[in-house]
Each structure stands twice: as C-alpha cells, then as structure tokens.
C-alpha cells in the first residue's frame, strides 16, 4: 500500500465535508478570490502548453470522465457509464441525460466526436499523443459514443479525463472568424462557451481573470444542491510571493497558491489561515547526461558506479530540510508515490557516505572529477539543492560548478544534449505512469530526458505495457522498469513535495488534485 497519505487525506476531506454539511445548513454562494503567481496564457483545452492554463481549465471545460480527488482513477463526468471491450479496442460511453453548454444549448454526440477528433489531430498542439491509439470516434445513437482503438490502450480512460479531451460546442467554435483552428480557438477563447462548472466572464490580462457560475452545470453536491456552490471565482495575479501572502493575511484574497516552503510553518501557525498541503505528483531530481563523451572528452557520468556513488553521497533528508523546510519526502522511485503503479518505499539510495566513497574508488574515476550543473536563475530551490550537492559531493572528490541560466537557455542546452547536469522537476498530466516513463526512461521519446541513457529492456517493457490490458502484468512491467531505471538511470533521486495552498479559514471544499488541477466545483465560503 503505497498511497496511504493521499487516501487518508481524501477520506478525511470527505468525512469533514460531510459533517459540515450536516451541522451547518447555510448559504453556499459567494465569490472566491484566489491569488495566483502567474496569469494564464491561452485557455484552449487543446492548444495550450503550460501549467498556468492546465491547472484551471477543468473549471471551464468538462470532460467525459473526471479525475477522482486522489488523482488515481476516474469517475463519471459528461458520461455516466463507460466500458472497455474485452480485447481492449473499443471504449463505449453513455452521455449524461439533458446536459447543456453554458449558453443552454444541448451537448450532443456531434460535439463530442468533433471535440475528440480535434484533440487527437496531430497538427493540433502538443497533447494529441494522449489519444494516439484512437482510430475513430462514432455515435451509434444519440447518447452513445464509441471510441475505436488501433491497439489496446490501458491509459485510455484516464486520457478521457485529461483537460485536452474537454467537450466544446462544435457549431459555436466553427462559427468563429478565422481560417485555421488556431485563429478560431483564439477568437473562441475571448468569449468561450463552456461545459464546466464555471464560465469565463472577463479577463484583464496580467491582472484579474473572472469566472462565474455556469447555471446549466449538471452536477449536484452532496447536500443535493446544484453545483457549483460559488457564484464565481476571481483569479488575481500576484507574482511576488511575499505580496501574495500579505494580501491573504490582510483578508483581501481568500486563497493563495504556491506558498514558498520557507513560509509554510509560519502560515500553519497562523490561526486565521488554513495552510493546505495537497498531495501532488511533483518530483524533484537531478538529470545527468550519460553520453560516453561530452565535448570530445570522456564523460565520468557515463560510469554507472559514479552515478550510484553520487546517489549515495546525496543526503536527501538534509536537502529536504534546507530546501523544502521539511515539507518534502524522499522519492522512492523516479515517479511520485501518487502515480498509479508506483513501487518502492523509502529512498532508493539511503544516504551512505562510506558506500559512496567505496563505489567511487571502484569506478574509473577514483580521484574524482569536475562537473557543472545548470540551475534556473532566480529559483531559490534549485540553487539550494545545487549548493548542498556541491558540499556533499566534494566528499567523493567531485568539484561541482553551479551555472545559473534562464529557462530558454537551459532548455536549449538540454535539448542539444550538451548539458552535464541539470536540476529538474516534473508533474504528471494524466493519472497513469506512461507519460512520465515515456519522457524519463523510454529512449525514443526524448533520449530519456535528453540524457542519452538507453536500456533495451526498459524500451521493450514500456512498448509492451502500452497495450497491456491485464493490470497485474502491467504492474509487473512497471515494477521492473522502475527497478532498472532507479538503480542505473541518468538521475539523482531527490524528493517529492505537495502543493502548498493557503486559504482563509472560511474557505471549504477546495482542493487541488495530484495532477495540479485546482477544483472549485464544491468550494464555498462559510458565512457565520
């Protein structure tokens, strides 16, 4: 049982919400103001490419299935029933009765087919890979959707709960001015018609984004009242961490996201603030370039013993204390413990300096070497990690140089494969281990995080797992992939951290799922 924390939290939340509903019968309206660190860029489910969009899109656009609060599986959304055929090649879904868009027009099978076809079009955006197994979407009758797959896809149900498979109104979208899908999407995003609990009311870029209740939303809350409870959500963009917290403390906003770990303890002690740490899929690690040669010289990081020595010499608990102020936990695999099919318990390489020194002396570099690490300029967490590693790895003869660069610079060196080491972080977008594994370990995608690492066994296990419908077999495949990658992969495993969100005490029913989506559907402001 590896998911205890997430499950306990989810269960506790359900119980708590249930009790409040019983004890207090109250008005559940109100407009919630939520402080964000950065504004959204482009609120189209298919063509977006950043977390600032992804994490709020599901409030505006519903999907056929919804991710559960623990982010582990799916529940009913616009579809009430779903089944996968025995051979795994056909998904059949039943549309909910009487569902409409925010303008009151009915959501039809035609909208669903068009939305899914748009989402899987390889020319549209960067998320179509999630539906790459789909060969055709049809509607045998007015309430049934049939998705044909070219090969079985064990991740197809979670994929139908991911933001890019959201259902949009075909006619309204196509009536937009413009020639291309991008031009139409741009026009549509200015004045969108949604299927989610909220709909966009106004957007002053860089300042405020206002969502109001979608009166036509289908779901009812646990108290039998219609969802959403809130009349609206106003996002205020407050990039400075200290200012965002100050505005929360002064009562000007009801919630603030991405609280720096350094401030978590202080806000937990503040009786007026409800400091939440939502379980996430975020993992922090160091990616190593393991190509045999870099810049024409032999690359020490290609030596497996060196990598293991570095892992053993990394004191995860110390880094967690210094960088996350004790909020994080050591990762037990390259994927977070909240990812389905995760295996492992406790750090893969418990801190052991003697073991590290022994491995180093057995390696081809017994006297150590110098290397450099790329960190994001201005990112205190990454700088903290790198500084700690500089000191820790000096114990095994590694002279680490820290290079602070901006994101585009780092991405260029990363994609060219010319970097030596870099700090990295990852969050899943789908409740399935395939996305992170494809990027981290499966070499055809991006050379295993552009590290040049390759394992024939991992590649073939991953390919097999992609169409493996037997859950147990797939779990075994993933257990083996994790074993190989964690032991020999191009990576220093560090820690996983929750999403730190600070709320006013009267904010109830808000949560962020491990994939990052902020869910305001059941949120309300308690009045006294």
């Amino acid at each position, binding site marked *: 049982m590896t998911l205890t924390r997430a499950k306990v939290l989810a269960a506790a939340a359900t119980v708590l919400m249930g009790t409040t509903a019983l004890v207090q019968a109250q008005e559940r309206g109100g407009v919630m103001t939520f402080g964000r660190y950065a504004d959204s860029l482009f609120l189209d489910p298919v063509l977006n490419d950043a977390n600032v969009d992804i994490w709020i899109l599901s409030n505006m656009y519903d999907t056929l299935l919804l991710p559960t609060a623990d982010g582990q599986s799916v529940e009913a959304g616009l579809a009430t029933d779903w089944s996968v055929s025995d051979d795994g090649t056909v998904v059949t879904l039943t549309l909910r009765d009487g569902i409409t868009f925010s303008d009151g027009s009915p959501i039809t099978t035609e909208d669903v087919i068009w939305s899914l076809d748009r989402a899987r079009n390889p020319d549209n955006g960067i998320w179509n890979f999630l539906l790459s197994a789909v060969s055709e979407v049809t509607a045998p009758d007015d309430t049934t959707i049939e998705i044909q797959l070219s090969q079985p896809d064990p991740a197809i149900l979670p994929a139908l709960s991911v933001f890019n498979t959201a259902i949009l109104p075909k006619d309204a979208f196509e009536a937009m001015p413009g020639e291309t899908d991008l031009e139409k999407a741009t026009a549509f995003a200015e004045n969108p018609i949604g299927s989610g609990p909220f709909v966009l009311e106004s957007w002053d870029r860089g300042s405020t984004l206002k969502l109001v209740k979608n009166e036509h939303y289908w779901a009812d809350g646990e108290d039998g009242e219609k969802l959403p409870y809130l009349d609206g959500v106003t996002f205020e963009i407050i*990039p400075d961490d200290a200012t965002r917290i100050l*505005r929360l403390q002064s009562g000007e906003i009801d919630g603030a996201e991405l609280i720096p770990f350094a401030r978590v303890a202080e806000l937990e002690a503040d009786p007026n603030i409800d400091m939440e740490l939502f379980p996430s899929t975020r993992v922090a690690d160091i990616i190593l370039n393991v190509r045999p040669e870099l810049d024409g010289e032999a690359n020490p990081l290609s030596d497996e013993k060196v990598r293991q020595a570095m892992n053993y010499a990394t004191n995860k608990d110390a880094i967690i204390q210094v960088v996350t102020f004790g909020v994080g936990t050591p990762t037990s695999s390259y994927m977070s413990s909240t990812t389905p099919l995760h295996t492992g318990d406790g750090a893969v390489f418990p801190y052991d300096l003697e073991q590290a020194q022994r491995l180093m002396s057995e390696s081809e570099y017994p006297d150590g070497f110098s290397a450099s690490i790329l960190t994001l300029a201005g990112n205190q967490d990454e700088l903290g990690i790198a500084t700690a590693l500089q000191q820790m790895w000096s114990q095994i003869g590694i002279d680490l140089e820290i290079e602070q660069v901006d994101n585009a610079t780092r991405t260029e060196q990363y994609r060219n494969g010319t970097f030596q080491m870099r700090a990295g972080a990852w969050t899943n977008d789908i409740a399935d281990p395939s996305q992170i594994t494809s990027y981290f370990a499966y070499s055809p995608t991006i050379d295993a995080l552009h590290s040049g690492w390759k394992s024939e066994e991992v590649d073939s296990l991953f390919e097999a797992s992609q169409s493996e419908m037997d859950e147990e077999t797939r779990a075994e495949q993933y257990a083996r992939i994790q074993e190989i990658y964690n032991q020999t992969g191009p990576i220093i495993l560090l820690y996983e951290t929750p999403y730190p969100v600070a709320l006013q005490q009267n904010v109830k029913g808000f949560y962020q799922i491990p994939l990052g989506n902020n869910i305001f559907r059941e949120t309300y402001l308690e009045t006294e």
Partner: protein
Amino acid sequence: MSLPAFLGRRLLQLIPTLIFILIVVFVLVRLLPGDPASAILGDRALDADVERINRELGLDRPLPVQFWAFVQSVFTGNLGNSISMKIPVTQLIWERLPITMLLTFMAALIAVVVAVPLAFVAALRRDRIADSAIRGAFQVGLSMPVFYVGLILLTVFGAKLRWFPVGGYGDGFVDQLYHLFLPAVTLALSLSAILMRNLRSAIIGVVDAEYVTFARAKGLRPRLILFRHILRNALISTLTLFGLSIGTLLGGAVITESVFAVPGAGRLMIDSIYGRDYPVVQGLTIALAVLVSLTFLLTDILQAWLDPRVTR
C-alpha cells in the same frame, strides 16, 4: 534658429534612432539562447513539436526575410501576435503600457514635488542641520533596494495600517490612482534623491554667481531673484538629468510592478523575455523607445524655453 525649426530638426533626428532600435531589438532578441518553442514547451518539448511551432511562426525562414517582414509589418502598424498568448501585440501594449505610463508619471510627479522644495531648503541652509538631515534621509532612501522598500510600504501602510490596498490594480481612474500611490512612492524614492542632490548643488553654484550678486545689488525683491534668477538657471542641468531618468524609471517599474502586482508593461516585458515571445519583446521595446524619445524631445523643448542659448 527659431523654436519650430529646432523642433523639426529634433523630430528628424528621431527617425534614424528608431530605425537603429528596430535593428537592435530584432537582432538582440534572436541572440538570446533558445527559441520560443523551447521556452514555451520547456522540458516536455518534443523535436517534432518544436519544429512545427517554429514553422508556424515563420522562424525557420532566413533572418533577412524575417527582418524584412518585421519592418514591413511595423510600418503598417501591425506588431504581430503574441506567441504565448496568441492575441495581437498592439492589444497587449494598449492594455498594459498606459498603466506603466501612469505609474511612471505619478512617480516623476512625486519625485519633483518632494525634491524641489527640499533642495531649496538644503541649499539655502547649506551645511546646517536642515541640510544634513535632508541629505541624510535621502541617502538612506537612495541606498535601499526597491523591492525591499516596496515590501515595507506594503506591510506598514497596506497590511497593518490599512491606509492603502496591498497591491493590485483597481477599477476606475480614482481607484487606480489610489492603488498606484504606494508603487509610485517606491519608484519615486531614488529619483527624488538624485534630483534633490543635483538641484541642491546647482542652486549652490548659482547662488554664488555674479549675476545673482548683481541682482541683489540692484535691490530686486528676494522672491523674484529666487524664482527668475536662481531656480530657472539651476533647473537647466537638473532638467536634463530628469529627462534621462525617465528611461531608468520605466526600467525600475519592472520590479515595482512585480512587488505590487500591478499589471503593467514592465512585468509583461520580463515574462516575454523569459518566454522568448519575440513579437511582444519587439513591440514593447519599440513602444518604450518611442515613449522615451518623446520624453527627451519634451525635455529639449523645456530646456530651450529655460535656456534660450540651446536653440542658438
């Protein structure tokens, strides 16, 4: 040379400046490592996606072709669409730049209102307690980092005393002025210190000038001497400094806007540089360059009025 002829010549001089800026901004933004596609997609970028996006944006064309397209569109008033936000750059500038202009204007006004009278007091009470106190206070203001001053003002006057909102940008002009007051004070702090010191020494220089002694000897009223002879002459060098500082002030707005959550052009610029959003960086730079050039022009005109020797 008459004032109109002087003006005409200065306006003509703007043209090569702007052409130079067009070239510089086009080249500089492309000299930065990385490209928009990698910046947007970050670590998840697949080669195929990066290639597709660069093709869609026309970034796979030769640089001279791209530059020619850029120049053509600039002169037709079309600055292109933002790569990350998809909307027209002109719309973004129109939404964000006026906020920064208002903030800068308020800061400049506050700086002048504070600096000029205090410079007089300091200069005329030279080396006495008032002078030392004023100079000392400004020295402290000048040496404190902007983001730190901003946070202190926010904590004290916003969160604790509740006299001002804790950042953000209001609805309606009066509310916006109210929201911009603390950021404007923050921004004005270092400028007022520089202006005060400069004006103080200019006044000291003028007070001892022969023409002032002569005016006194003629028996002119002290008030007349102060305004017509001392202030007017002392302001000449300070005005130049003030004009040049506007550019710096616009730069300082970047940090101030972030601390106070003001949705101005400064923050847009920073985000766009990090995101390698070429059209936005180019468009904003051009808009800011025009703005700064116009400020310089205005400074020149004021200077010509203060000091008729300039147009000769």
